[in-house]
């Protein structure tokens, strides 16, 4: 079983991203489960979402405490919350950032991948310039780094599940996939 935690802010699409990944994993012939932090979500506030991936049906119904990988949709969260809490040694941290991985100030036995999801989202007119929706771009970086989901599956899932602009969202994921910087 692979477990993933996503950190974003209300309005960036963290929960939708976890659901798109779950749908793509199903297309890959595997089992998935996606869920938000159980509570009340507010625009701009920190939001957490979770994803489980397995080769068999998933009976686990509790919070993820020790994720294998972390996805960070908003780099301003780094100073605010402990984003690496419980992260397993050797896990990937995928961050929305224009910096290269070696410039990211996170200490620990982790691997870092970066992509400028904000720029990609603005380029494809996803959300507004002030509040771009970066979820599909960061998904592209996640699968590039972890190889846990097939590229075609995720592009298809994004097209099916995007509330708006399905083609642009898929293009954003592909562009992020091609431009992810790996440590």
């Amino acid at each position: 079983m692979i477990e993933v935690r996503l950190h974003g802010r209300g309005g960036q699409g963290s929960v939708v991203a976890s659901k798109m990944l779950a749908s793509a994993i199903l297309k890959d012939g595997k089992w998935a489960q996606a869920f938000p932090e159980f509570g009340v979500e507010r625009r701009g506030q920190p939001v957490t979402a979770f994803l489980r991936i397995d080769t068999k049906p998933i009976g686990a119904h509790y919070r993820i405490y020790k994720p294998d990988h972390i996805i960070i949709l908003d780099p301003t969260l780094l100073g605010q919350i402990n984003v690496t809490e419980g992260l397993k040694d050797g896990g990937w941290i995928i961050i929305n950032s224009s910096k290269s991985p070696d410039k990211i100030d996170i200490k620990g036995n982790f691997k870092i991948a970066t992509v400028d999801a904000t720029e990609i989202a603005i380029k494809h007119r996803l959300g507004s310039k002030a509040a771009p929706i970066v979820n599909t771009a960061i998904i592209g970086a996640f699968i590039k780094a972890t190889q846990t989901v097939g590229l075609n599956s995720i592009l298809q899932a994004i097209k099916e599940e995007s509330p708006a602009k399905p083609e642009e969202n898929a293009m954003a994921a592909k562009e992020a996939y091609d431009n992810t910087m790996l440590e």
Partner: protein
Amino acid sequence: MMKVIMGNHALSYGAKLSRVQVIAAYPITPQTQVVELLSEMCANGELDAKFVKVESEHSAMAASIGASAVGARAFTATSAQGLALMHEMIHWAVGARTPIVLGNINRAMGPPWSIWTEQNDSLSERDTGIMQVYCESNQEVQDTVIQSFRVSEKLLLPCMVVLDAFYLSHTYEPVDIPEQSLVDEYLPAFNPPYRLDPDDPHTFGSLTDSKWYYELRYKIEVAMNKARDEWKKANEEFENLFDRGYGLVEDYKCEDADLILITSGTITGTARIAVDILREKGKKVGLLKIRVFRPFPIDEVRDVLGGAKKVACIDRNISFGHSGIFFAEVKSALYNNSNRPPIWGYIAGLGGRDVTPETVMEIVKRTEESDTPEELIWIGLKKG
């Protein structure tokens, strides 16, 4: 077709596949998502049903009773305080023998306000005569709605399909959404023996004195008693058509078990993981999931638990001044049985407190180390 959907929508798909004709609902969290999708399906023509917006949950059930009394298949959904407001009308639905299916997302009762899971809302309806089925996955939620209409309409008893808030309601899981033609084969159109009809006027539920009320109550119990077999039959035919099924109970690794855990809802899947870990360590632990709570599966509970040395029941609910409610029901089922293993009662996860495999293993350890059964043990209680 396999699709990743949330538990709220699993209820919606179950209702749609059952070709419900009337949906009466009042929007309360997470109601909005259950009936939001159904209202969209009604608006875009996917579902040929009348969507009735009402001003309260009491009215939602009242409108469902009216619809069912004229012979329409009726569905509604609610949670917590909303279910409590329906309480009077649930008694009415049972007495009038209207086979309505009600989806209830288990949420803790306020105050203090909570939107997180706990079973006290549905278990407070225990003695109304509505059937109750507790689900552990979104697949089971969807399938149970379809099965419920079949059993309910056969017996003319309403049924409540119950799922945990968030752990299912807002969790996305792959669900096999079957072809409509297959569901049509399984679930024939609702055709009640009695219905309100202006051309042949009769009444439902008018004043009945002591000469006959007693017998009418007896008939409800006769139907409830039959329901055990009807659920089994409904499930066998479901398995034949859909290649999956669910019993009144489900036992997991119980055959040679010294200690058997009892669970309901999503704690079941988590407890199964704990059982697997403990089995690898050589511990003979099993698990009994209680799915159908009303009618209570007395024979199955006796059969599965009879051979165990110890039983530990996990309740995400409490009857204040007594014990966990599943615990009390199981203990009562065993009392007149010749094999009567001692049973420990644990309260866990109230108000959505997380229950992990570690929580379940702590329960097993505590039960193993104890010689005398304890009936009310609060697991993970903070001090002070």
